[in-house]
């Protein structure tokens, strides 16, 4: 990510100083655009479920579910730099809490609150212990969550329905709304997911976000600045778990069934892949990650269902090979490509040492980031 900071810092560092802004950014600063674009997006999202086909609505709703899950992972990993291989556990936990609450016919608002609270508390407890560790060690502790979670869910069959899982159909469109179920479900996902995204957006832009970034950059520096890496790691992990719980609620809204398979280790890895493919440490990247998580299996199925693993692996490698920064870096990569091809000027002298900086463009910029031994 070292490369991105160079190119985009100017636009972010001084958003307020319109005096010096370029025409493009003043266009963005204009109130019509400032408020119009999000409004347009909002209206678009509000209308979309009404005009799309059922299966498109359904796909979009599933993208929403996993975008939220990836967003949670991003909070702890993309923004705070703590490798978590256990995010799917919190999705599964949230789904089970929802399914159990619905089966007990609790008030749905209470169920939702519990779906946030229980995973958050579970995440907090894990983090209190795990955040003392760093690097790969924290990865191994979090890997244990899905690995142990699956047999645990089977053992606690009184609450979880064992390996046969639990169904919960609680989100039929309300009478008189005139909506189909798929439309209603998509609205629920858009509203709840939208709120989570908005809150996370403010979180990572604010002082907590800055603290997360410093902890990610260098824990020693953080300590010297009076930022406790431990506290912020615990906080990030807890928030990630809470968001994971919400994604579990949305999972039940959309899939309406959960079983131990839901939280299997493989899915946790897939979430990690989705996060990196979308773009680590990025809100938009989380959405793109959700898209990747949901759409790629559908695409590979459409191409040849007997070759899905091969195609998915190839696709993943191809995307990262072209865009090591994830899908979110596509516009930047395109801009760079345009700039390079249009400006064939000799400012940068012809590359005379191609071999020392393999892989051209991005690698050249990344030579600045040296790897140090794992600390």
């Amino acid at each position: 990510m070292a490369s991105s900071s160079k190119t985009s810092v100017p636009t972010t560092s001084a958003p307020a100083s319109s005096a010096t802004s370029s025409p493009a950014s003043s266009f963005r600063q204009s109130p019509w655009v400032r408020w119009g674009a999000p409004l347009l997006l909002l209206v678009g999202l509000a209308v979309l479920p009404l005009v799309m086909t059922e299966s498109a609505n359904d796909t979009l709703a599933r993208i929403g579910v996993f975008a939220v899950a990836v967003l949670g992972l991003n909070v702890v990993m993309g923004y705070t730099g703590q490798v978590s291989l256990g995010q799917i556990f919190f999705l599964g936990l949230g789904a089970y809490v929802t399914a159990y609450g619905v089966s007990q016919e609790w008030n749905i608002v209470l169920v939702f609150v519990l779906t946030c609270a229980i995973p958050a508390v579970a995440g907090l407890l894990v983090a209190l212990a795990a955040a003392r560790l760093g690097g790969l060690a924290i990865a191994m502790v979090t890997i244990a969550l899905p690995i142990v979670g699956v047999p645990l869910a089977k053992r606690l069959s009184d609450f979880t329905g064992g390996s046969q899982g639990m169904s919960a159909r609680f989100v039929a469109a309300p009478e008189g709304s005139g909506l189909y179920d798929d439309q209603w479900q998509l609205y629920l996902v858009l509203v709840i997911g939208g709120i989570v995204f908005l809150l996370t957006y403010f979180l990572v832009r604010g002082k907590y976000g800055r603290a997360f970034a410093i902890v990610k950059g260098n824990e020693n520096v953080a300590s010297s600045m009076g930022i406790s890496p431990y506290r912020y790691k615990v906080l990030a992990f807890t928030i990630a778990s809470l968001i994971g719980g919400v994604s579990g609620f949305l999972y039940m809204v959309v899939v309406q069934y959960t079983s131990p398979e839901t939280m299997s280790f493989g899915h946790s890895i897939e979430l990690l892949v989705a996060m990196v493919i979308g773009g680590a440490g990025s809100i938009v990247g989380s959405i793109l990650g959700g898209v990747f998580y949901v759409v790629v299996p559908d695409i590979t199925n459409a191409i040849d269902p007997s070759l899905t693993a091969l195609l998915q692996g190839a696709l993943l490698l191809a995307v990262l090979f072209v865009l090591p920064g994830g899908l979110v870096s596509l516009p930047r990569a395109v801009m760079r490509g345009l700039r390079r091809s249009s400006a064939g000027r000799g400012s940068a002298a012809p590359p005379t040492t191609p071999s020392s900086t393999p892989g051209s463009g991005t690698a050249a910029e990344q030579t600045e980031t040296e790897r140090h031994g794992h600390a």
Partner: protein
Amino acid sequence: MTLLELEDVTASYGPVQVLDGVSLSVPENGAFGILGANGAGKTTTLRAISGAVRTGGRIVFDGKDISGMRPDQVAALGIAHVPEGRGSFGDLTVRENLRVGAYLRKDRKGIDEDIDYCLDLFPNLQDRIKSNASALSGGEQQMLAVARAIMSKPRMLLLDEASLGLAPSTAKNVYDAIRRLRLESGIAMVVVEQNANLAFTVVDDATVLETGRSVLTGTSAELKGMDEIRRAYLGG
């Protein structure tokens, strides 16, 4: 006899131009200083010599154009680079670090002798010979980095900010050893320093870089006498 010659060297990271035509020359057994503020292009100049960044212009070492070579090829010609931040191999012991420095050599006996020489030059390392490099203090790591470079029996040493982050007395120790090394071995040097006072204890000539170009070049004595140098780099 000129050992190293840079002619109008340019370099850039992505769209950002970092070196904008740097020229300098270092004679055999000479020591040359590069001064300048943060971001002036000092480190990049050394990286350009080592082949760690793409460059334009010409870099000639011992009569041979080395621009376009890989860092390991440059090292094999006898240029040892002590990078900024010391570049120690944290998980290797001090002795292993020194052996990595001697990677290109085949003379076992000579290597052992040179290890002894390094330990004599930096007595602090003697006690830590079996410790991991990451367990050393900043000053000791700096000494180790210089020692590692010596181990390749270079003809030229590129020294990048050897005083950075060190207590003044430690920094002085490091530079004393470097001066001694220069006197005893005659290795040519290019020394990058923000602390010009320290640099002037070692170098004969120096240049001042600003935004990627040389703005002033002269002997140590000349430069030391200039007011603006004194104000900007000598703390007076």
